[in-house]
């Protein structure tokens, strides 16, 4: 058995005339907290979706916990948890019913589902239907659904986007806790402070390629700048992205 949780090799994905992912290779160690940074449209979401096994790459392979993620492998899906960038819920169901439904797919008890709801601070919103949750509450529910079955490997696509400062700090604590239990966490974020405090290593992406990988401190000192934000701007430029 290899000790790496994720091995991605030469991933490429094209949408029409957009080369969304253009030869991405990276490795994430078991138990590592890994961040993917990059401007809008850099290809972060597409990369994650390929690695998760949600999309077939045009080229390249991704292995999770030693197994290929494409074609679909339900045994592997049990061991990973995914929060997609856009939340997806069943219509007309309350928060509690949503998470219990997801829990049932993994044979996880209702009690455990309710506890998960508690840990993202949604207990008093348990009986609210999905379309009446605020953006941040929906985001927290989506994260809770991704974590409900205690996955060994967790993918979070911009988990803290839209969260208030309290919810953000609480989520950080939750993610640190599950990471300290030995689980591997991969997230994307546009908050550099978040990447700096949480991630063991970050990869900076642009135009479908990984530009640089390393621990935040190391990247900062390598480039001789003051913060991770400077690293980001140094690597990806200052112009707007389309």
């Amino acid at each position, binding site marked *: 058995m290899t000790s790496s949780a994720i091995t991605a090799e030469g991933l490429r994905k094209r949408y029409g005339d957009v080369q969304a992912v253009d030869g991405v290779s990276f490795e994430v160690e078991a138990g590592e907290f890994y961040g993917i940074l990059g401007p809008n449209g850099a290809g972060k979401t597409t990369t994650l979706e390929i690695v998760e*096994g*949600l999309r077939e790459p045009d080229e390249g392979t991704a292995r999770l916990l030693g197994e290929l993620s494409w074609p679909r492998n*339900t045994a592997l*899906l049990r061991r990973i948890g995914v929060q*997609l960038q*856009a939340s*997806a*819920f069943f219509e007309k169901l309350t928060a509690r019913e949503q998470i219990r*439904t997801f829990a049932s*797919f993994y044979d996880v008890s209702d009690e455990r589902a309710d506890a998960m709801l508690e840990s993202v601070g949604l207990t008093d919103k348990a009986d609210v239907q999905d379309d009446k949750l605020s953006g941040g509450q929906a985001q927290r529910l989506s994260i809770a659904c991704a974590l409900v079955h205690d996955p060994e490997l967790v993918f979070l696509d911009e988990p803290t986007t839209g969260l208030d400062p309290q919810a953000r700090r609480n989520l950080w604590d939750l993610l640190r806790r599950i990471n300290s239990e030995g689980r591997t966490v991969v997230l994307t974020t546009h908050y550099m402070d978040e990447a700096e405090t949480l991630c063991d290593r970050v990869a900076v992406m642009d135009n479908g390629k990984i530009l640089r990988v390393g621990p935040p401190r190391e990247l900062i000192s390598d480039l001789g700048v003051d913060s991770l934000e400077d690293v980001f701007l140094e690597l990806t430029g200052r112009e707007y992205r389309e």
Partner: protein
Amino acid sequence: MRTLRSLSKVMYLGMVRDKSAVFFMLLFPLMFLLLFGALFQSEGGTRVTVAQVGDVEVLDQLGDDQLGALDETLRIERAGDRDRALEDVRQGDVDAAIWEVDGEIELYVSASDPARSGTVNGIVNGLVQEANVAATGQEPTYRITAGQVEDESLKAIQFFTPGLLGWAVAMGASFMSALTLVAWRKKRLLRRLWLAPIGPGQVIGARVGVSLGLSMVQLAVFLGVAIIPFYGLRLTGNWWLSIPLIACGTLAFMAVGLVIGAWAKTEESANGALQITILPMAFLSGSFFPTDGMPGWLQTVSHVLPLKWLNEAMMSVLSRGGGWSDALPAMGVLLLFAAVLTAIAAKLFRWDSA
């Protein structure tokens, strides 16, 4: 097993919490049945009403059991005087006026409805002849024994129940499967479920199970309402064959919904496409009125419609005493439809709206 159960629950809750879905799937067709059943109650029945003035011996001497037997066809009303009775005939409130003057029975019928007038004449004539024979004190030379043949023309409720039920099931099954597919794709739930360790069989199984459940509820409610005496549906021998028939019809119309759901990008376009598919089909298949009056070529065309097969077979087993020989071919055709349309839907299927 737990996955199947919770997916079914999710679909069930999604349906019953959608007030407009419950209305259109269940209540709307039922309202049609209640309304049509009440509106067309007298239509087709040949029950005539006679206004009687003063004593008329042939009528007055009838015993309760004879009156009971006549009740299906004849109702006797008392009228105050002859002018009143004739006026009622003129107004169409009653079908005939009758009185007796010294053994001479006078019967006045309306000239506008020869069929009903004939019925009244026939009945009264029969009663008079019977009374005459009885008066002679002799055994009648000739007697009639009446047998019954299931008639091609039916009481309105015998026609509306299977027709409207077919329409209701077609709507319920096709709308539920199309809207589930479109909504789940649009809300990215299909993608999300791809990442959960569940199989397509469980999702499809839950959808089929919930739709079959809905159809059976529709069947039970329709039959339950139609057999109350006010509506007076009479179920014929093999009515239980409607259960497998409705099940096959449900599968066929779920497949119709799948094709439309796989093609449509939004709920609105799925809704529109379903309306223009199901409603004309319901008309052509005789859900709302008999299609005997349709031009021949249209009748031929209507035989490629799954709802036509469902309606005909349902009518046959519910109202005309039909059996396996009527139900089996229809079930076969419906299952064939289901298989072909599902294959087409699988070709059109997309995971996301992009």
